[in-house]
């Protein structure tokens, strides 16, 4: 029963992706649609970053991840390599978590 749910979910997710790619080209060439399509990845990624950093899924929280993101922001601003940015964020978060809670 669970696997039927998984299969339906997977198919739904795939069809959503296909639908996005299948929007007719002439529709995308209208200026407003073109602007929206260009802005959407920016707003979606920004929102994703915020939600992944400051929420637990059900509520808002401020924890060690915020410190990790702050360090990542500095590293990005300094144009450090991608992997350095990610590693610094993870290390900072782990350190702050360990220093604050002792676990």
């Amino acid at each position, binding site marked *: 029963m669970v696997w039927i749910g998984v299969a339906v979910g997977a198919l739904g997710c795939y069809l959503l992706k296909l639908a996005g790619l299948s929007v007719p080209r002439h529709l995308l060439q209208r*200026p407003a649609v073109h602007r929206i399509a260009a802005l959407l990845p920016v707003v*979606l*990624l920004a929102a994703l970053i915020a939600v992944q950093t*400051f929420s637990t899924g059900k509520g808002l929280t401020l924890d060690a991840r915020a410190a990790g993101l702050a360090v990542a922001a500095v590293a990005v601003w300094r144009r450090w390599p991608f992997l350095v940015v990610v590693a610094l964020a*993870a290390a900072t978060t782990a350190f702050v978590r360990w220093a604050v809670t002792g676990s």
Partner: protein
Amino acid sequence: MLGARNALYGLRLSEILGVRGVRRAVAAQLVIDESTAMSIGRDTDRAARLGFYATGAGVFALWNLGTLIGSVGASWLSDPRLLGLDAAAPAAFLALLAPRLRGREVWALALAAALVALVAVPFVPVGVPVLLAGAVGVIAGLIPRHGRGS
């Protein structure tokens, strides 16, 4: 609900990729946060396509491999939070988003989107906050620009 944003990514990607038929069916499977992020930051269409396919294929392979390793090895690593790995994803997305944040308008829009998503978190199911932020982008895109040539 989590997958709905991929349809919105597709709007932008279909222009860059220009795929039809079987190739579109394959490309659709690869549409995800990472491949979109690697694609939209490129200056040329060629580099954008490369970014999309390389990242999409890489994520697809490593994600499934990682899931397998994770399910087998979960017993050894007590808690991934101990390594701060839960902060790795937002940091990576930040690094990918940064090249797009050119100009005050885009900055303001990104911050507004983040704020809308956060405010919504306690009130709606998982996945919906990001979609609401998408609505912010749609509304901003509908406002015609006058004389500033953006």
